[in-house]
Protein backbone atom coordinates (compact mmCIF):
# COMPACT_ATOMS: atom_id res chain seq x y z
CA UNK A 1 0.00 0.00 0.00
CA UNK A 2 2.66 2.39 1.06
CA UNK A 3 4.84 1.53 -1.92
CA UNK A 4 2.04 1.98 -4.45
CA UNK A 5 1.44 5.51 -3.16
CA UNK A 6 5.09 6.42 -3.49
CA UNK A 7 5.18 5.04 -7.03
CA UNK A 8 2.15 6.96 -8.17
CA UNK A 9 3.49 10.18 -6.68
CA UNK A 10 6.71 9.72 -8.61
CA UNK A 11 4.89 9.50 -11.92
CA UNK A 12 5.27 12.74 -13.86
CA UNK A 13 1.98 14.57 -14.17
CA UNK A 14 0.72 14.99 -17.69
CA UNK A 15 -1.40 17.83 -18.97
CA UNK A 16 -3.27 15.63 -21.45
CA UNK A 17 -5.12 12.72 -19.87
CA UNK A 18 -5.69 9.31 -21.41
CA UNK A 19 -2.17 8.49 -22.55
CA UNK A 20 -2.37 4.86 -21.42
CA UNK A 21 -5.75 4.26 -23.01
CA UNK A 22 -4.98 5.88 -26.34
CA UNK A 23 -1.57 4.20 -26.63
CA UNK A 24 -3.18 0.84 -25.86
CA UNK A 25 -5.77 1.38 -28.54
CA UNK A 26 -3.16 2.52 -31.07
CA UNK A 27 -1.01 -0.54 -30.47
CA UNK A 28 -3.86 -3.04 -30.76
CA UNK A 29 -5.25 -1.28 -33.81
CA UNK A 30 -1.91 -1.16 -35.63
CA UNK A 31 -1.27 -4.72 -34.49
CA UNK A 32 -4.49 -6.07 -35.97
CA UNK A 33 -4.43 -4.06 -39.16
CA UNK A 34 -0.75 -3.87 -40.03
CA UNK A 35 1.70 -5.75 -37.85
CA UNK A 36 0.11 -9.20 -37.49
CA UNK A 37 -0.65 -9.68 -41.21
CA UNK A 38 2.83 -8.57 -42.17
CA UNK A 39 4.52 -10.70 -39.52
CA UNK A 40 2.63 -13.66 -40.90
CA UNK A 41 4.25 -13.00 -44.27
CA UNK A 42 7.69 -13.31 -42.71
CA UNK A 43 6.58 -16.31 -40.69
CA UNK A 44 5.31 -18.13 -43.76
CA UNK A 45 8.51 -17.56 -45.68
CA UNK A 46 10.64 -19.07 -42.89
CA UNK A 47 9.29 -22.45 -43.93
CA UNK A 48 11.73 -22.32 -46.83
CA UNK A 49 14.81 -22.15 -44.65
CA UNK A 50 17.71 -19.92 -45.55
CA UNK A 51 18.86 -21.94 -48.59
CA UNK A 52 15.36 -22.19 -50.01
CA UNK A 53 14.87 -18.49 -49.42
CA UNK A 54 18.12 -17.69 -51.18
CA UNK A 55 17.27 -20.03 -54.04
CA UNK A 56 14.02 -18.19 -54.73
CA UNK A 57 15.60 -14.77 -54.57
CA UNK A 58 18.70 -15.58 -56.59
CA UNK A 59 16.88 -16.72 -59.72
CA UNK A 60 17.45 -14.48 -62.74
CA UNK A 61 13.76 -13.92 -63.26
CA UNK A 62 13.27 -12.67 -59.68
CA UNK A 63 16.37 -10.51 -59.75
CA UNK A 64 15.42 -8.76 -62.96
CA UNK A 65 11.89 -8.23 -61.62
CA UNK A 66 13.36 -6.54 -58.51
CA UNK A 67 15.69 -4.43 -60.63
CA UNK A 68 12.82 -3.41 -62.87
CA UNK A 69 10.42 -2.62 -60.03
CA UNK A 70 12.80 -0.60 -57.87
CA UNK A 71 14.62 1.01 -60.79
CA UNK A 72 11.48 2.22 -62.55
CA UNK A 73 9.86 3.22 -59.26
CA UNK A 74 12.86 5.37 -58.38
CA UNK A 75 12.74 6.92 -61.84
CA UNK A 76 8.99 7.52 -61.49
CA UNK A 77 9.60 9.13 -58.07
CA UNK A 78 12.19 11.45 -59.63
CA UNK A 79 9.95 12.32 -62.58
CA UNK A 80 7.12 13.08 -60.22
CA UNK A 81 9.50 15.19 -58.16
CA UNK A 82 10.28 17.35 -61.19
CA UNK A 83 6.87 17.56 -62.82
CA UNK A 84 4.84 17.45 -59.61
CA UNK A 85 6.87 20.44 -58.47
CA UNK A 86 5.94 22.24 -61.67
CA UNK A 87 2.25 21.40 -61.28
CA UNK A 88 2.19 22.50 -57.63
CA UNK A 89 4.07 25.69 -58.54
CA UNK A 90 1.60 26.61 -61.29
CA UNK A 91 -1.42 25.79 -59.13
CA UNK A 92 -0.18 27.87 -56.18
CA UNK A 93 1.60 30.78 -57.81
CA UNK A 94 -0.63 31.74 -60.72
CA UNK A 95 -4.25 32.73 -61.11
CA UNK A 96 -5.97 31.49 -64.26
CA UNK A 97 -9.41 30.30 -65.30
CA UNK A 98 -9.93 26.61 -64.56
CA UNK A 99 -7.32 26.53 -61.81
CA UNK A 100 -9.73 24.98 -59.30
CA UNK A 101 -10.75 22.27 -61.79
CA UNK A 102 -7.14 21.44 -62.53
CA UNK A 103 -6.43 21.35 -58.81
CA UNK A 104 -9.23 18.83 -58.28
CA UNK A 105 -8.05 16.73 -61.24
CA UNK A 106 -4.72 16.14 -59.48
CA UNK A 107 -6.44 13.74 -57.07
CA UNK A 108 -8.03 11.62 -59.81
CA UNK A 109 -5.22 9.02 -59.95
CA UNK A 110 -6.16 8.26 -56.31
CA UNK A 111 -9.87 8.13 -56.91
CA UNK A 112 -10.26 5.41 -59.51
CA UNK A 113 -9.32 1.75 -59.77
CA UNK A 114 -5.77 1.59 -61.01
CA UNK A 115 -6.81 -1.07 -63.51
CA UNK A 116 -8.92 1.56 -65.26
CA UNK A 117 -5.89 3.80 -65.50
CA UNK A 118 -3.83 0.92 -66.84
CA UNK A 119 -6.37 0.10 -69.54
CA UNK A 120 -6.78 3.76 -70.52
CA UNK A 121 -3.02 4.26 -70.78
CA UNK A 122 -2.63 1.03 -72.75
CA UNK A 123 -5.39 2.10 -75.15
CA UNK A 124 -3.64 5.41 -75.75
CA UNK A 125 -0.08 4.14 -76.03
CA UNK A 126 -0.51 0.75 -77.72
CA UNK A 127 1.01 0.65 -81.23
CA UNK A 128 -2.48 1.10 -82.67
CA UNK A 129 -3.57 3.69 -80.07
CA UNK A 130 -3.95 7.44 -80.45
CA UNK A 131 -0.50 8.44 -79.24
CA UNK A 132 1.19 5.06 -79.67
CA UNK A 133 0.52 5.05 -83.43
CA UNK A 134 2.31 8.41 -83.76
CA UNK A 135 5.28 7.22 -81.70
CA UNK A 136 5.64 3.80 -83.39
CA UNK A 137 7.09 5.20 -86.67
CA UNK A 138 9.74 7.00 -84.59
CA UNK A 139 10.76 3.67 -83.11
CA UNK A 140 9.45 4.55 -79.65
CA UNK A 141 7.56 1.73 -77.99
CA UNK A 142 5.63 2.68 -74.87
CA UNK A 143 2.99 0.07 -74.14
CA UNK A 144 4.32 -3.48 -73.54
CA UNK A 145 7.77 -2.02 -72.78
CA UNK A 146 9.53 -0.64 -69.65
CA UNK A 147 8.60 2.89 -70.80
CA UNK A 148 4.93 1.98 -70.42
CA UNK A 149 5.52 0.75 -66.87
CA UNK A 150 7.27 4.01 -66.07
CA UNK A 151 4.30 5.92 -67.47
CA UNK A 152 1.81 4.04 -65.28
CA UNK A 153 3.98 4.40 -62.17
CA UNK A 154 4.38 8.14 -62.77
CA UNK A 155 0.63 8.52 -63.28
CA UNK A 156 -0.34 6.93 -59.98
CA UNK A 157 2.33 8.80 -57.97
CA UNK A 158 1.67 12.34 -59.13
CA UNK A 159 -0.74 13.45 -56.37
CA UNK A 160 1.79 12.71 -53.61
CA UNK A 161 4.29 15.33 -54.72
CA UNK A 162 1.68 17.96 -55.59
CA UNK A 163 -0.20 17.56 -52.33
CA UNK A 164 2.85 17.60 -50.07
CA UNK A 165 4.32 20.65 -51.81
CA UNK A 166 1.22 22.79 -52.07
CA UNK A 167 0.85 23.80 -48.41
CA UNK A 168 4.56 24.58 -48.07
CA UNK A 169 4.49 26.67 -51.24
CA UNK A 170 1.46 28.56 -50.02
CA UNK A 171 3.24 29.33 -46.75
CA UNK A 172 6.20 31.02 -48.44
CA UNK A 173 6.33 34.71 -47.65
CA UNK A 174 6.42 36.87 -50.77
CA UNK A 175 8.34 39.41 -48.69
CA UNK A 176 11.32 37.04 -48.64
CA UNK A 177 11.47 37.06 -52.43
CA UNK A 178 11.16 40.83 -52.45
CA UNK A 179 13.93 41.03 -49.88
CA UNK A 180 16.14 38.88 -52.10
CA UNK A 181 15.37 41.10 -55.10
CA UNK A 182 16.13 44.31 -53.21
CA UNK A 183 19.46 42.77 -52.17
CA UNK A 184 20.37 42.41 -55.83
CA UNK A 185 19.49 38.75 -56.46
CA UNK A 186 18.18 37.93 -59.94
CA UNK A 187 15.24 35.53 -60.45
CA UNK A 188 17.43 32.46 -60.61
CA UNK A 189 19.45 33.30 -57.51
CA UNK A 190 16.22 34.08 -55.67
CA UNK A 191 14.77 30.72 -56.64
CA UNK A 192 17.93 28.79 -55.84
CA UNK A 193 18.75 30.43 -52.52
CA UNK A 194 15.42 31.61 -51.12
CA UNK A 195 12.48 29.70 -52.60
CA UNK A 196 13.86 26.22 -53.16
CA UNK A 197 15.63 25.36 -49.87
CA UNK A 198 12.49 25.56 -47.69
CA UNK A 199 10.64 23.41 -50.25
CA UNK A 200 13.27 20.69 -50.44
CA UNK A 201 12.18 18.53 -47.47
CA UNK A 202 8.58 18.48 -48.71
CA UNK A 203 9.74 17.72 -52.22
CA UNK A 204 11.83 14.78 -51.04
CA UNK A 205 8.98 13.53 -48.88
CA UNK A 206 6.53 13.70 -51.76
CA UNK A 207 8.90 11.98 -54.17
CA UNK A 208 9.65 9.23 -51.67
CA UNK A 209 5.93 8.65 -51.13
CA UNK A 210 5.44 8.45 -54.89
CA UNK A 211 8.34 5.99 -55.08
CA UNK A 212 6.93 3.81 -52.29
CA UNK A 213 3.54 3.80 -53.94
CA UNK A 214 5.10 2.81 -57.27
CA UNK A 215 6.97 -0.13 -55.71
CA UNK A 216 3.69 -1.69 -54.58
CA UNK A 217 1.68 -0.82 -57.70
CA UNK A 218 0.07 -3.74 -59.48
CA UNK A 219 -3.27 -2.93 -61.10
CA UNK A 220 -2.30 -0.38 -63.71
CA UNK A 221 1.04 -1.94 -64.61
CA UNK A 222 -0.17 -5.44 -65.51
CA UNK A 223 -2.22 -4.06 -68.41
CA UNK A 224 0.45 -1.88 -69.97
CA UNK A 225 3.55 -3.92 -69.18
CA UNK A 226 3.17 -6.90 -71.46
CA UNK A 227 4.51 -9.00 -68.57
CA UNK A 228 7.34 -10.79 -70.38
CA UNK A 229 9.37 -12.71 -67.75
CA UNK A 230 12.79 -11.16 -67.21
CA UNK A 231 11.89 -8.16 -69.38
CA UNK A 232 8.70 -6.39 -68.32
CA UNK A 233 7.65 -8.39 -65.28
CA UNK A 234 7.37 -6.50 -61.97
CA UNK A 235 7.69 -8.05 -58.51
CA UNK A 236 4.01 -7.75 -57.48
CA UNK A 237 3.08 -9.63 -60.65
CA UNK A 238 5.68 -12.29 -59.95
CA UNK A 239 4.17 -12.75 -56.49
CA UNK A 240 0.73 -13.19 -58.06
CA UNK A 241 2.15 -15.72 -60.51
CA UNK A 242 3.71 -17.75 -57.71
CA UNK A 243 0.44 -17.66 -55.78
CA UNK A 244 -1.47 -18.93 -58.78
CA UNK A 245 1.00 -21.84 -58.95
CA UNK A 246 0.35 -22.54 -55.24
CA UNK A 247 3.98 -21.67 -54.46
CA UNK A 248 3.01 -19.88 -51.24
CA UNK A 249 6.45 -20.07 -49.67
CA UNK A 250 8.09 -18.59 -52.77
CA UNK A 251 5.51 -15.79 -52.92
CA UNK A 252 6.06 -14.90 -49.27
CA UNK A 253 9.82 -14.92 -49.75
CA UNK A 254 9.46 -12.24 -52.40
CA UNK A 255 6.96 -10.37 -50.27
CA UNK A 256 9.34 -10.45 -47.30
CA UNK A 257 12.12 -8.86 -49.24
CA UNK A 258 9.78 -6.17 -50.58
CA UNK A 259 8.55 -5.54 -47.06
CA UNK A 260 12.06 -5.17 -45.71
CA UNK A 261 13.02 -2.70 -48.43
CA UNK A 262 9.78 -0.74 -48.02
CA UNK A 263 10.20 -0.56 -44.27
CA UNK A 264 13.67 0.95 -44.51
CA UNK A 265 12.24 3.42 -47.01
CA UNK A 266 9.39 4.49 -44.80
CA UNK A 267 11.74 5.02 -41.87
CA UNK A 268 13.73 7.36 -44.07
CA UNK A 269 10.48 9.04 -45.11
CA UNK A 270 9.40 9.64 -41.52
CA UNK A 271 12.74 11.18 -40.77
CA UNK A 272 12.29 13.57 -43.69
CA UNK A 273 8.79 14.49 -42.67
CA UNK A 274 10.03 15.43 -39.23
CA UNK A 275 12.65 17.62 -40.82
CA UNK A 276 9.99 19.34 -42.93
CA UNK A 277 7.80 20.12 -39.96
CA UNK A 278 10.79 21.43 -38.00
CA UNK A 279 11.81 23.83 -40.72
CA UNK A 280 8.22 24.99 -41.11
CA UNK A 281 7.85 25.64 -37.40
CA UNK A 282 10.84 27.92 -37.43
CA UNK A 283 9.35 30.11 -40.12
Amino acid sequence: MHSSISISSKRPRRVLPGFGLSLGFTLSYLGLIVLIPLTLVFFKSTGLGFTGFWKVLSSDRVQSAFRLTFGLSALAGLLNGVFGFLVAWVLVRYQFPGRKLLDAAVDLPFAMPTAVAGIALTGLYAPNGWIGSKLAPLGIKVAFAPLGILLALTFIGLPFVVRTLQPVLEDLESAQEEAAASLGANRWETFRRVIFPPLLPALVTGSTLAFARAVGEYGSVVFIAGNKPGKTEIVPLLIMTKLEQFDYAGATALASLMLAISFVLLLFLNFLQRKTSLSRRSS
Partner: protein
Amino acid sequence: MSILVQNLRRTFGSFQALRGINLEIQSHQLVALLGPSGSGKTTFLRILGGLDFPDPGHGKILIQNEDVTEQPAADRKTGFVFQHYALFNHLTVFENVAFGLNVRPKHIRPNSNSIRDRVVELLQLVQLDGLDQRLPSELSGGQRQRVALARALAIDPRVLLLDEPFGALDAKVRKDLRRWLRSFHKEIGVTTVFVTHDQQEALELADTVVIMNQGQIEQVGPPQEIYDHPATPFVYEFLGDVNKLRKPGRPDLFYVRPHEIQILFASDSSADFSARIEHLFAAGPSARLTLRMPNTRETVDADITRQQLDEMGLSEGDEVGLKLATASPKAPAPAVTPSR
Protein backbone atom coordinates in the same frame (compact mmCIF):
# COMPACT_ATOMS: atom_id res chain seq x y z
CA MET B 1 21.76 60.45 -51.47
CA SER B 2 19.01 62.80 -52.51
CA ILE B 3 15.66 61.59 -53.77
CA LEU B 4 13.35 63.49 -56.07
CA VAL B 5 9.81 62.31 -56.74
CA GLN B 6 7.64 63.96 -59.35
CA ASN B 7 3.91 63.58 -59.84
CA LEU B 8 3.78 59.93 -58.81
CA ARG B 9 0.53 58.04 -59.34
CA ARG B 10 -0.41 54.46 -58.53
CA THR B 11 -3.79 52.89 -59.12
CA PHE B 12 -4.96 49.43 -58.02
CA GLY B 13 -8.03 48.63 -60.08
CA SER B 14 -10.35 51.52 -59.30
CA PHE B 15 -8.54 52.50 -56.10
CA GLN B 16 -6.14 55.41 -56.36
CA ALA B 17 -3.44 54.57 -53.85
CA LEU B 18 -1.22 57.51 -54.79
CA ARG B 19 -2.56 60.57 -56.55
CA GLY B 20 0.26 62.83 -57.58
CA ILE B 21 3.11 62.72 -55.09
CA ASN B 22 5.81 65.37 -55.32
CA LEU B 23 8.64 65.23 -52.83
CA GLU B 24 12.26 66.19 -52.50
CA ILE B 25 14.47 64.52 -49.91
CA GLN B 26 17.93 65.87 -49.16
CA SER B 27 20.98 63.65 -48.67
CA HIS B 28 21.61 62.15 -45.22
CA GLN B 29 18.14 62.94 -43.97
CA LEU B 30 15.99 60.74 -41.76
CA VAL B 31 12.49 61.09 -43.16
CA ALA B 32 9.23 59.77 -41.72
CA LEU B 33 6.25 58.96 -43.93
CA LEU B 34 3.39 59.41 -41.50
CA GLY B 35 -0.25 58.71 -42.12
CA PRO B 36 -3.22 56.55 -41.21
CA SER B 37 -3.51 53.08 -42.72
CA GLY B 38 -4.64 53.24 -46.32
CA SER B 39 -3.00 56.62 -46.86
CA GLY B 40 -0.59 55.17 -49.42
CA LYS B 41 2.61 55.49 -47.41
CA THR B 42 3.68 51.86 -47.74
CA THR B 43 2.85 51.85 -51.46
CA PHE B 44 5.00 54.93 -51.83
CA LEU B 45 7.89 53.29 -49.96
CA ARG B 46 7.62 50.14 -52.09
CA ILE B 47 7.75 52.21 -55.26
CA LEU B 48 10.85 53.98 -53.96
CA GLY B 49 12.42 50.54 -53.43
CA GLY B 50 11.45 49.19 -56.84
CA LEU B 51 9.11 46.57 -55.38
CA ASP B 52 6.17 48.26 -57.07
CA PHE B 53 5.94 50.68 -59.96
CA PRO B 54 3.94 53.84 -60.70
CA ASP B 55 1.18 53.82 -63.30
CA PRO B 56 2.91 53.86 -66.71
CA GLY B 57 3.80 57.41 -67.65
CA HIS B 58 2.66 58.84 -64.33
CA GLY B 59 5.59 59.79 -62.21
CA LYS B 60 9.32 59.94 -62.04
CA ILE B 61 11.81 59.00 -59.34
CA LEU B 62 15.36 60.29 -59.30
CA ILE B 63 17.99 59.09 -56.88
CA GLN B 64 21.03 61.38 -56.91
CA ASN B 65 19.80 62.81 -60.25
CA GLU B 66 19.62 59.36 -61.86
CA ASP B 67 16.21 58.37 -63.20
CA VAL B 68 15.38 55.03 -61.54
CA THR B 69 11.66 54.95 -62.29
CA GLU B 70 11.87 51.86 -64.48
CA GLN B 71 14.72 50.20 -62.62
CA PRO B 72 13.79 46.90 -60.92
CA ALA B 73 14.61 46.39 -57.26
CA ALA B 74 17.61 44.19 -57.97
CA ASP B 75 19.43 47.00 -59.81
CA ARG B 76 18.33 49.90 -57.66
CA LYS B 77 20.62 49.43 -54.63
CA THR B 78 18.05 50.51 -52.11
CA GLY B 79 18.15 48.74 -48.75
CA PHE B 80 14.65 47.65 -47.81
CA VAL B 81 13.68 46.52 -44.31
CA PHE B 82 10.32 44.79 -44.15
CA GLN B 83 7.75 45.15 -41.42
CA HIS B 84 8.02 41.48 -40.46
CA TYR B 85 11.75 41.42 -41.30
CA ALA B 86 11.42 38.77 -44.07
CA LEU B 87 14.64 37.10 -42.92
CA PHE B 88 15.64 33.91 -44.72
CA ASN B 89 14.67 31.39 -42.06
CA HIS B 90 16.81 28.56 -43.40
CA LEU B 91 19.97 30.67 -43.35
CA THR B 92 22.05 31.71 -40.35
CA VAL B 93 22.39 35.32 -39.27
CA PHE B 94 25.76 35.40 -40.99
CA GLU B 95 24.37 34.02 -44.27
CA ASN B 96 21.43 36.42 -44.11
CA VAL B 97 23.70 39.43 -43.82
CA ALA B 98 26.10 38.10 -46.46
CA PHE B 99 23.25 37.37 -48.90
CA GLY B 100 23.45 40.62 -50.87
CA LEU B 101 27.20 40.13 -51.38
CA ASN B 102 27.00 36.43 -52.21
CA VAL B 103 24.48 36.90 -55.02
CA ARG B 104 26.61 39.40 -56.88
CA PRO B 105 27.89 38.29 -60.29
CA LYS B 106 31.36 36.74 -60.01
CA HIS B 107 33.32 39.65 -61.42
CA ILE B 108 32.05 42.13 -58.81
CA ARG B 109 31.64 39.72 -55.88
CA PRO B 110 34.08 40.33 -53.02
CA ASN B 111 36.18 37.31 -52.04
CA SER B 112 35.00 35.25 -49.10
CA ASN B 113 37.46 36.86 -46.68
CA SER B 114 36.27 40.38 -47.37
CA ILE B 115 32.64 39.21 -47.20
CA ARG B 116 33.40 37.75 -43.78
CA ASP B 117 35.04 40.96 -42.61
CA ARG B 118 32.14 43.05 -43.87
CA VAL B 119 29.53 40.85 -42.15
CA VAL B 120 31.43 40.88 -38.85
CA GLU B 121 31.72 44.65 -39.08
CA LEU B 122 27.99 45.06 -39.77
CA LEU B 123 27.00 42.74 -36.95
CA GLN B 124 29.14 44.82 -34.61
CA LEU B 125 27.45 47.94 -35.91
CA VAL B 126 23.99 46.58 -35.05
CA GLN B 127 25.30 45.14 -31.77
CA LEU B 128 24.77 41.50 -32.66
CA ASP B 129 28.38 40.30 -32.61
CA GLY B 130 28.69 36.67 -31.61
CA LEU B 131 25.22 35.71 -32.86
CA ASP B 132 26.34 35.05 -36.43
CA GLN B 133 25.69 31.28 -36.35
CA ARG B 134 22.17 31.56 -34.92
CA LEU B 135 19.06 30.95 -37.02
CA PRO B 136 16.48 33.73 -37.17
CA SER B 137 14.07 31.55 -35.16
CA GLU B 138 16.51 31.69 -32.25
CA LEU B 139 16.44 35.49 -32.03
CA SER B 140 14.11 37.96 -30.34
CA GLY B 141 12.02 40.41 -32.37
CA GLY B 142 14.38 43.32 -31.78
CA GLN B 143 17.39 41.21 -32.75
CA ARG B 144 15.69 40.07 -35.96
CA GLN B 145 14.94 43.67 -36.82
CA ARG B 146 18.62 44.52 -36.48
CA VAL B 147 19.66 41.52 -38.61
CA ALA B 148 17.30 42.79 -41.31
CA LEU B 149 18.93 46.21 -41.01
CA ALA B 150 22.45 44.79 -41.26
CA ARG B 151 21.40 42.69 -44.26
CA ALA B 152 20.05 45.78 -46.03
CA LEU B 153 23.20 47.77 -45.23
CA ALA B 154 25.54 45.07 -46.57
CA ILE B 155 24.95 46.19 -50.16
CA ASP B 156 25.98 49.79 -49.36
CA PRO B 157 22.54 51.06 -50.30
CA ARG B 158 22.07 54.51 -51.79
CA VAL B 159 19.01 54.95 -49.60
CA LEU B 160 17.60 52.91 -46.73
CA LEU B 161 13.84 52.23 -46.69
CA LEU B 162 12.12 50.93 -43.55
CA ASP B 163 8.51 49.77 -43.54
CA GLU B 164 6.97 50.18 -40.07
CA PRO B 165 10.32 49.32 -38.52
CA PHE B 166 9.01 49.06 -34.97
CA GLY B 167 5.49 47.90 -35.76
CA ALA B 168 5.86 44.32 -34.57
CA LEU B 169 7.76 45.05 -31.35
CA ASP B 170 6.51 45.57 -27.83
CA ALA B 171 6.51 49.04 -26.28
CA LYS B 172 9.74 48.77 -24.30
CA VAL B 173 11.85 47.35 -27.13
CA ARG B 174 10.26 49.83 -29.47
CA LYS B 175 11.42 52.75 -27.42
CA ASP B 176 14.97 51.42 -27.03
CA LEU B 177 15.26 50.61 -30.72
CA ARG B 178 13.89 53.99 -31.71
CA ARG B 179 16.54 55.78 -29.68
CA TRP B 180 19.17 53.43 -31.05
CA LEU B 181 18.09 54.01 -34.66
CA ARG B 182 18.38 57.77 -34.20
CA SER B 183 22.02 57.60 -33.15
CA PHE B 184 22.66 54.82 -35.63
CA HIS B 185 21.46 57.02 -38.47
CA LYS B 186 23.75 59.82 -37.28
CA GLU B 187 26.64 57.38 -37.37
CA ILE B 188 26.10 55.92 -40.86
CA GLY B 189 24.48 58.95 -42.51
CA VAL B 190 22.58 57.00 -45.18
CA THR B 191 19.49 58.80 -46.46
CA THR B 192 16.68 56.95 -44.69
CA VAL B 193 12.94 56.91 -45.24
CA PHE B 194 10.69 55.08 -42.80
CA VAL B 195 6.97 54.49 -42.73
CA THR B 196 4.98 54.78 -39.53
CA HIS B 197 1.45 55.43 -38.35
CA ASP B 198 2.66 56.50 -34.91
CA GLN B 199 2.85 60.30 -34.78
CA GLN B 200 5.04 60.32 -31.68
CA GLU B 201 7.55 58.03 -33.37
CA ALA B 202 7.67 60.26 -36.43
CA LEU B 203 8.02 63.50 -34.49
CA GLU B 204 10.69 62.17 -32.13
CA LEU B 205 12.82 60.42 -34.71
CA ALA B 206 12.73 62.21 -38.04
CA ASP B 207 14.50 65.28 -39.43
CA THR B 208 11.62 65.70 -41.85
CA VAL B 209 8.07 64.46 -41.48
CA VAL B 210 5.90 63.82 -44.54
CA ILE B 211 2.24 63.58 -43.64
CA MET B 212 0.14 61.55 -46.07
CA ASN B 213 -3.60 61.17 -46.38
CA GLN B 214 -5.67 59.43 -49.06
CA GLY B 215 -2.79 59.08 -51.49
CA GLN B 216 -1.61 62.65 -51.20
CA ILE B 217 0.93 64.59 -49.20
CA GLU B 218 -0.71 66.95 -46.73
CA GLN B 219 2.38 68.60 -45.34
CA VAL B 220 6.17 68.28 -45.35
CA GLY B 221 8.46 69.85 -42.79
CA PRO B 222 10.59 69.49 -39.67
CA PRO B 223 8.68 67.92 -36.76
CA GLN B 224 8.56 71.12 -34.70
CA GLU B 225 7.14 73.11 -37.57
CA ILE B 226 4.54 70.47 -38.33
CA TYR B 227 3.46 70.34 -34.73
CA ASP B 228 3.35 74.11 -34.27
CA HIS B 229 1.91 75.05 -37.63
CA PRO B 230 -0.27 72.30 -39.03
CA ALA B 231 -1.15 73.22 -42.58
CA THR B 232 -4.50 71.47 -42.90
CA PRO B 233 -7.34 70.33 -40.64
CA PHE B 234 -6.29 66.74 -41.33
CA VAL B 235 -2.77 67.33 -40.01
CA TYR B 236 -4.18 69.11 -36.96
CA GLU B 237 -6.41 66.21 -36.11
CA PHE B 238 -3.98 63.47 -37.06
CA LEU B 239 -1.23 64.77 -34.79
CA GLY B 240 -3.75 64.39 -32.03
CA ASP B 241 -4.16 66.03 -28.66
CA VAL B 242 -6.27 68.80 -30.10
CA ASN B 243 -9.65 70.34 -29.31
CA LYS B 244 -12.22 71.31 -31.88
CA LEU B 245 -14.01 74.39 -30.61
CA ARG B 246 -16.88 76.57 -31.69
CA LYS B 247 -17.06 80.12 -30.39
CA PRO B 248 -20.43 80.97 -28.90
CA GLY B 249 -22.72 82.43 -31.49
CA ARG B 250 -20.44 81.58 -34.43
CA PRO B 251 -20.76 78.56 -36.69
CA ASP B 252 -17.11 77.94 -37.64
CA LEU B 253 -14.85 75.41 -35.92
CA PHE B 254 -11.27 75.95 -34.99
CA TYR B 255 -8.52 73.96 -33.37
CA VAL B 256 -6.70 74.57 -30.15
CA ARG B 257 -4.20 72.40 -28.29
CA PRO B 258 -4.72 71.64 -24.58
CA HIS B 259 -1.73 73.72 -23.49
CA GLU B 260 -3.07 76.75 -25.36
CA ILE B 261 -6.11 77.05 -23.12
CA GLN B 262 -5.94 79.20 -20.00
CA ILE B 263 -8.08 78.32 -17.00
CA LEU B 264 -9.57 81.25 -15.09
CA PHE B 265 -12.00 81.57 -12.20
CA ALA B 266 -15.60 81.51 -13.36
CA SER B 267 -16.06 85.06 -12.15
CA ASP B 268 -13.26 86.39 -14.39
CA SER B 269 -14.77 88.62 -17.05
CA SER B 270 -11.97 88.10 -19.59
CA ALA B 271 -12.96 84.45 -20.16
CA ASP B 272 -14.09 83.41 -23.66
CA PHE B 273 -16.10 80.39 -22.47
CA SER B 274 -17.34 78.89 -19.30
CA ALA B 275 -17.18 75.20 -18.58
CA ARG B 276 -17.45 72.61 -15.82
CA ILE B 277 -14.55 70.37 -14.79
CA GLU B 278 -15.62 66.82 -15.47
CA HIS B 279 -12.36 65.06 -14.68
CA LEU B 280 -8.93 66.07 -13.54
CA PHE B 281 -5.70 64.16 -13.27
CA ALA B 282 -2.29 65.46 -12.28
CA ALA B 283 0.82 63.52 -13.29
CA GLY B 284 4.20 65.18 -12.75
CA PRO B 285 4.38 68.93 -13.22
CA SER B 286 1.21 69.31 -15.29
CA ALA B 287 -2.44 68.47 -14.88
CA ARG B 288 -4.95 67.46 -17.53
CA LEU B 289 -8.51 68.76 -17.15
CA THR B 290 -11.46 67.44 -19.08
CA LEU B 291 -14.06 70.17 -19.32
CA ARG B 292 -17.64 70.10 -20.54
CA MET B 293 -19.08 73.18 -22.24
CA PRO B 294 -22.58 73.82 -20.91
CA ASN B 295 -23.97 75.32 -24.13
CA THR B 296 -22.67 72.86 -26.77
CA ARG B 297 -22.21 69.77 -24.53
CA GLU B 298 -18.77 69.26 -26.15
CA THR B 299 -15.76 68.25 -24.08
CA VAL B 300 -12.44 70.03 -24.18
CA ASP B 301 -9.05 69.01 -22.80
CA ALA B 302 -6.80 71.58 -21.16
CA ASP B 303 -3.33 71.31 -19.63
CA ILE B 304 -2.36 73.56 -16.71
CA THR B 305 0.55 73.48 -14.32
CA ARG B 306 0.35 71.59 -11.04
CA GLN B 307 1.11 74.85 -9.33
CA GLN B 308 -1.88 76.62 -10.86
CA LEU B 309 -4.11 73.71 -9.97
CA ASP B 310 -3.08 73.96 -6.32
CA GLU B 311 -3.28 77.76 -6.22
CA MET B 312 -6.78 77.84 -7.66
CA GLY B 313 -7.85 74.90 -5.51
CA LEU B 314 -9.78 73.31 -8.35
CA SER B 315 -11.67 70.07 -8.01
CA GLU B 316 -14.09 68.05 -10.13
CA GLY B 317 -17.48 69.67 -10.66
CA ASP B 318 -16.13 73.25 -10.34
CA GLU B 319 -17.25 75.92 -12.78
CA VAL B 320 -14.32 77.69 -14.51
CA GLY B 321 -13.70 80.20 -17.28
CA LEU B 322 -11.64 79.39 -20.38
CA LYS B 323 -9.49 81.74 -22.36
CA LEU B 324 -7.59 80.88 -25.49
CA ALA B 325 -3.91 81.66 -25.02
CA THR B 326 -3.47 82.85 -28.57
CA ALA B 327 -5.39 85.91 -29.60
CA SER B 328 -6.45 84.57 -32.98
CA PRO B 329 -6.85 80.84 -33.43
CA LYS B 330 -4.32 79.22 -35.76
CA ALA B 331 -5.38 77.37 -38.81
CA PRO B 332 -9.07 77.95 -38.63
CA ALA B 333 -10.74 75.03 -40.29
CA PRO B 334 -13.00 76.34 -42.97
CA ALA B 335 -13.63 73.00 -44.63
CA VAL B 336 -14.32 70.93 -41.57
CA THR B 337 -17.79 69.58 -41.22
CA PRO B 338 -18.89 69.22 -37.61
CA SER B 339 -20.27 65.75 -38.27
CA ARG B 340 -17.10 64.02 -37.07
